């Protein structure tokens, strides 16, 4: 199993979610996050007091899938999360040891 963490733009969330749903991914976890990469922050001004905001708000989705399904999931996120501008985000993939459905105690891919 793989865990896919993708940091994407807020307004792409719906697109990505719907597309993943069509490809058999029926659950995900979403978080509001802040961070920085190549996309620079911005400055804000309040009555002359200047603040530099380095951390840009993004949304992070976490999806777990079977090894076979990985490429499809990644392609889907790439296709639907992309605008081509700096700031589209990143995808991180890692191996996942196990998954357990709390209600039934099922383990592994059966729990997804």
């Amino acid at each position, binding site marked *: 199993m793989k865990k896919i963490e993708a940091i994407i733009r807020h307004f792409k969330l719906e697109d990505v979610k719907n597309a993943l749903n069509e490809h058999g991914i029926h659950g995900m976890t979403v978080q509001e996050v802040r961070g920085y990469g190549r996309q620079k922050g911005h400055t*804000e*001004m*309040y*009555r*002359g*007091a200047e*603040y530099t905001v380095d951390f840009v708000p993004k949304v992070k989705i976490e999806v777990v899938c079977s090894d076979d399904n990985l490429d499809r999931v990644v392609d889907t996120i790439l296709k639907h999360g992309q605008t081509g501008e700096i700031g589209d985000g990143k995808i991180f993939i890692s191996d996942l040891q196990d998954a357990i459905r709390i209600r039934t105690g099922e383990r592994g891919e059966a729990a997804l």
Partner: protein
Amino acid sequence: MRTSPRRWWVGAIAVCAALWGGIETAGVFGEEAPPEDEVAAAPETPASELDTGANAWMLTSSALVLFMTAPGLAMFYGGLVRRKNVLSVMMQCLFLMAIMSLVWGLWGYSLAFGDGGRWIGNADYLGMRGVQMEAGQAPMVPGLGIPRLTHMVFQGMFFIITPALICGAFAERMKFSAMVALMVLWGTIVYTPLCHWVWAEGVLAFGADGAFAGGALDFAGGTVVHISSGFSALVCALVLGPRLGYGHDDMRPHNLAFTSLGAAMLWVGWFGFNAGSALAADGLAASAFVVTHFSAAAGAVAWSVVEWVYRGKPSVLGAASGAVAGLVCITPASGFVQPLPAMIMGAAAGVVCFIACAAVKTRFGYDDSLDAFGVHGIGGTLGAILTGIFATRAVAPDYADGLLYSVSEGGPLLVGQIVAVVVTAVFSIVVTLVLLKVIDATIGLRVSQEDEMRGLDLSEHGEEGYIFTG
């Protein structure tokens, strides 16, 4: 007009006796005491006839001025602080509405408006005697056509908002208990004498006997409200010192939507503040209403344009602050100037207050958290001085022309305005400083570092402003 102290007690005893002793006693006192008193008092006040229009407008204005403190100022200030302190600011406004009202009713009004001479009022209206109704009649204010109750409650709303304005200077770090003590004392020792000096034929009233430099024109509270609160605010900011992390921590306003709406509410409430200060529903009230509106509009545009030119973007906070600056500036002048000069005054306030908040504060490094001094102290001073320039007899024939219209009248008027500014500022600074030192030595002014970091909502009130879980 006024009932004597003894009469008041007779009335009180009569009521108690009537309740206690039954119909017989009630009959006796009912025939006798209060009505005669009213009849006897009537000839003193030839114009004691109730003007229902004026009374309706003044009661409406009173509600409008209360509306300025909360929700107006509460939201304006509440949005400007960090999320962890939003309730503390709202509580300061809300609690001052309550506590200052009690102080005003018990002794404030009497000290401010009792006929005690040049310096301070007297005990005539202590505990609302001579103000409250007697035998079904409300005592009238001589020559105004409104009950003294109306005058009292209208002026009481000013007594609430003035200390509330100061809260902007020490926001996010002052103990609630110290704030309450400061404001009760400040209201009593600073506000009531100032109010008497300016509006009760005291030493700053225009044309009053023995007034400093001939006195000053202050229609709705440039000196009494804005200069007094603004300079006291500066003292508070200096004595309390900056907030922890000032200058490097993220202290951005947590909710400018609140602030924008609060500014809009202040704008609306200010019609009661300024136009209500005509104490009548007449042409002068209409004129004050209009110049107030134009000055606010010009202030909002001016501040925005300055930012647009120098920073590339007009900010929402700038537009909101500019409107308030314009309103502050026109306050002393609202019963003396024409609409076009009001636009100039508003625009001048927008530019000058922007510089005060953006440049001067940064330069000197004091932490006037929400710019109570930058907007009210500076805006009020500018307004008082510009009143000496733009005042015209076309609006207020009984007063004086400003420098723009007459050098011979305007010169001395301008001097009087400046003297009033200096007297008000010095008096406010000195007394506030003493009060702060006394409170610091007894209650303590600031919350602990730990509490300041947690935020005053939790440390002072045990609550949080925003709970999004569940």
